[in-house]
C-alpha cells in the first residue's frame, strides 16, 4: 500500500552558514527509515513513465519497490544492471527534467525523490557490502578509451564486464574528467568518484594517466598497438570568454581554471602548492550549473560577497533549481538581467571593478528563450577583485587537429551515427566532444551505447 502524502521525504542538509565554509557534502543522504518511507510513496504504476525519462533506462519502480521492502541489496542489483554509477547519478543527474518530471505522483504534489533513493541505495551498498567487483579475465579484443570522464568510464565499464581488455588513456594526472576537476566535493564527494574508479580498476580496466591524444599518441598509433576499437570521450574543450575589455587582468578566471585549481589541485588546502587568489568580492558570469559551482566554491574560499551576474531572468537560468536554491541559501547574491561590458583594473593589473548594463527581455528567439536587450544608459559598476567566466566551452583544438580523418561538424564537434560510430569504422565517440556541454548522465548513456555497438560489431 503506497503512502499518499503529497510531500516527499526531505533529505537532511548541512546548515547553509556552516557548510559554505567547508567542502563537505551539502545533502547528507537518507537514513534507511527515510528511504523506505519515501519509497512507499511510489504508486508502482503500470505505465512506468519514469523509465522513459531516464537516459539509461533504470528500472525505477522495481528498485523503489525493493527499497520500500528494505531489500537494498536487490535494489542495488536492479539499478546497476543498467547504470553502473548510481552514487554519481543519484547526486548530479537533473532528475527534475528526467525521471522525476514524468512521475505520476508529480501531477498532484511532489514526484517521488528518485534521485535521492538512487543515491541512498548506492551509498548503502558502498557502506555495507564487501567489494563485490572481481576481476573479469579479459578474453576478447583490446579496446582503447580516450578520456576518463563519465562517458569513458561508462564505456569502459560496459566493455570490461563483457570480457574486453580495456585501457583508458587520460591526459590529466587523475582519472574522472569533469567528476574530478569540475564538480566540487560538496556536490559530489571525491571519495565517491574514487570508489567508482577503484571498482573499475578491480574489474580489470587499466588507466594510463598523462597521455594526450594527438600529442603523446595518435589514433593510428593506438590502432597499431593492437586496439581493435577506440572510443573517444575527450570532453568539452576551450573555455569561452566574453571578449570584453579587461579579461586578462589578474583575478579573471575561466570557471574551468577556478574549479580545476580547487577540485583537482586542492588550492583551498594549505598543504597543497596550488596557488589561487583568495578574493573578497567575486562576480561569476553565467547562469548554468558551472556558474553555481564556481560561485559556491568562491564563497568557500571565504569571499565576503559573491555575485552571480546573469543576463536573463531567473526563469531562464539553465542551472538546476536545487543548485540555485542551495547557492541562495549559502549567501550567493544573484543579479539578474545584468550583462558585464568591461572589467577594470588597478595599476598592477589587478581586477578592481566590473562595469555592467541592465538588460530587458524581448520576444523569445529561435532557441525559445527570451532574448536579452541592453537598456541604454543603465551602466553601473560593482567593486570586485575576482571575475569568473562560466559561459560555456568550445571544442578542443588539440582533438580537432589530432583526428583529422574523423569527420566533425562546422564547429568542431565529432560527428557520430546513432550507434556512436564516427566516420572511421574503428572509432566511436560520445559525451561532450560530440554533443557540446551536456550532462553527466547523457555522457554516460553515450558511452554505454557505444560499448553496446562495439560489442555487436565485434561479433560480426
Amino acid at each position: 500500500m503506497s503512502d499518499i502524502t503529497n510531500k516527499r521525504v526531505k533529505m537532511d542538509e548541512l546548515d547553509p552558514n556552516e557548510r559554505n565554509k567547508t567542502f563537505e557534502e551539502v545533502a547528507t543522504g537518507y537514513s534507511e527509515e527515510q528511504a523506505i518511507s519515501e519509497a512507499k510513496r511510489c504508486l508502482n504504476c503500470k505505465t512506468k513513465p519514469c523509465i522513459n525519462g531516464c537516459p539509461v533506462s533504470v528500472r525505477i519502480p522495481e528498485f523503489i519497490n525493493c527499497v520500500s521492502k528494505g531489500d537494498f541489496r536487490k535494489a542495488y542489483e536492479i539499478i546497476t544492471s543498467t547504470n553502473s554509477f548510481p552514487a554519481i547519478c543519484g547526486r548530479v543527474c537533473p532528475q527534475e527534467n528526467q525521471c522525476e518530471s514524468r512521475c505520476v505522483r508529480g501531477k498532484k504534489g511532489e514526484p517521488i525523490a528518485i534521485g535521492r533513493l538512487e543515491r541512498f541505495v548506492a551509498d548503502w551498498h558502498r557502506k555495507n557490502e564487501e567489494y563485490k567487483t572481481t576481476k573479469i579475465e579479459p578474453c576478447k579484443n583490446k579496446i582503447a578509451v580516450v578520456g576518463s570522464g563519465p562517458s569513458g568510464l561508462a564505456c569502459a565499464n560496459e566493455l570490461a564486464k563483457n570480457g574486453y581488455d580495456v585501457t583508458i588513456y587520460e591526459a590529466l594526472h587523475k582519472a574522472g574528467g569533469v567528476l574530478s576537476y569540475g564538480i566540487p566535493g560538496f556536490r559530489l564527494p571525491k571519495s565517491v568518484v574514487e570508489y567508482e574508479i577503484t571498482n573499475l580498476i578491480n574489474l580489470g580496466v587499466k588507466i594510463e594517466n598523462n597521455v594526450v591524444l594527438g600529442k603523446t599518441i595518435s589514433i593510428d598509433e593506438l590502432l597499431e598497438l593492437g586496439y581493435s576499437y577506440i572510443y573517444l570521450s575527450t570532453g568539452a574543450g576551450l573555455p569561452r570568454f566574453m571578449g570584453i575589455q579587461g579579461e586578462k587582468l589578474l583575478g579573471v578566471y575561466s570557471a574551468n581554471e577556478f574549479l580545476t585549481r580547487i577540485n583537482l589541485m586542492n588550492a583551498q588546502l594549505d598543504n597543497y602548492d596550488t596557488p589561487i587568489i583568495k578574493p573578497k568580492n567575486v562576480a561569476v558570469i553565467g547562469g548554468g550549473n558551472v556558474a553555481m559551482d564556481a560561485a559556491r566554491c568562491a564563497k568557500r574560499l571565504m569571499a565576503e560577497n559573491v555575485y552571480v551576474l546573469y543576463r536573463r531572468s531567473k526563469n531562464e537560468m539553465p542551472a538546476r533549481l536545487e543548485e540555485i536554491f542551495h547557492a541562495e541559501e549559502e549567501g550567493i547574491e544573484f543579479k539578474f538581467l545584468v550583462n558585464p561590458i568591461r572589467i577594470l583594473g588597478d595599476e598592477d593589473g589587478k581586477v578592481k571593478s566590473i562595469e555592467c548594463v541592465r538588460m530587458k527581455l524581448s520576444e523569445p528567439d529561435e532557441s525559445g528563450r527570451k532574448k536579452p536587450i541592453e537598456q541604454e544608459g543603465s551602466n553601473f559598476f560593482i567593486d570586485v577583485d575576482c571575475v569568473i567566466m562560466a559561459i560555456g566551452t568550445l571544442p578542443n583544438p588539440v582533438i580537432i587537429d589530432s583526428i583529422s580523418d574523423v569527420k566533425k561538424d562546422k564547429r568542431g564537434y565529432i560527428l557520430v551515427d546513432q550507434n556512436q560510430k564516427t566516420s572511421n569504422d574503428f572509432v566511436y565517440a560520445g559525451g561532450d566532444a560530440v554533443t557540446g556541454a551536456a550532462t553527466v548522465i547523457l555522457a554516460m548513456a553515450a558511452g554505454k551505447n557505444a560499448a553496446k555497438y562495439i560489442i555487436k560489431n565485434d561479433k560480426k
Partner: protein
Amino acid sequence: MFLIVEKKRLNEVSTKMKIKAPMIAKKAKAGQFIILRVNEYGERIPLTISDCDKDEGTVTIVYQRIGKTTMLLDELNKGDYILDFVGPLGKPTLTDGAEKVVIIGGGVGCAIAFPQAKQLYRAGKKVDIIAGFRNKDLIILEDEMKKVCDNLFIMTDDGSNGNKGFVTNCLENQIKNGYTYDLAIAIGPLAMMKAVCELTKEHNIKTIVSMNPIMIDGTGMCGCCRVTVNGETKFACVDGPDFDGHKVDFDETMKRIKMYEEVERKKIRDYNCNLMKGVSDV
C-alpha cells in the same frame, strides 16, 4: 612515474635532467613543452623540452631553481622518479622557408633555443646564436651550442666573460655589420623577448617568440595561459607556445605572470624555513 636517468648541475642556478619518457621522446619536436608534477601536493608546471633521444627514450629538460616546484624537483636525483610528466604539448616551431636564422637565447632560455638551432643547423640552414647571461658563471650549454651554429656570440650583462652587453646590442651590431637574417627566434625572459622584437621589427625580420605563461592542464581546458596576439586571445598551450613576436602584447603577459608572485614568495620562504629546520634537527 618517470625515471630520472641523468642529472647535471650546469651552474649555481640551473640544472639539466634527462627523464625516461619514451612516448614523449618519440614524438617531441623543437618548440614543444612538457608539464610535470613532482609530488602529490605539487603544482603542474610547464617546461620546454631542451632535447630528446628517441633511441634512449629520454627527454631532457633544463630548469632554474626559482620557484618551489623547481626546488622540489632539484631535491630529486638520478634514479628517483617524477610523479607526472606529460607531453609533448603545444605546437612545434615552424621555420618553413627560413634560410638564415638568428637564434637569441636569454639565460635558461638558451636550453630551449638549443633544439631549434640543432634542427635548423642539421637541415643545412645558416644559424647564428646570440646567448645572453647575467655573468660568466651562469653561462650554460656553451659547447653544445657551438656545435649547432655558424657563429656563437655570448654576451654577459656585467661583461665578466669579456663581452659586455645585452643580446640586443649584439644583434644590432650584426645587422649594422651587414648580416642579414630572414628569421629570428627569441627565447628567454619576457623583457628580453620584447626588446628583441622591438629591434627586429625596426629591421623587418620576422621573429618567433616562445611564451611560457602560467598553465595547469596544458591541453586547452583551463584557459589560464591566454595571451593577446594581434589583438586576439590565444591560448599558449594549444595555439602556441610560439607566436609572432611582433604581434604579442608583452606588457600584458609581464603583468599576468606576476599573478601569484606573493604566494610564490611565501611558499619559497616556508620551503627554505623547513630546510633550515631539517638542518638544525640533524
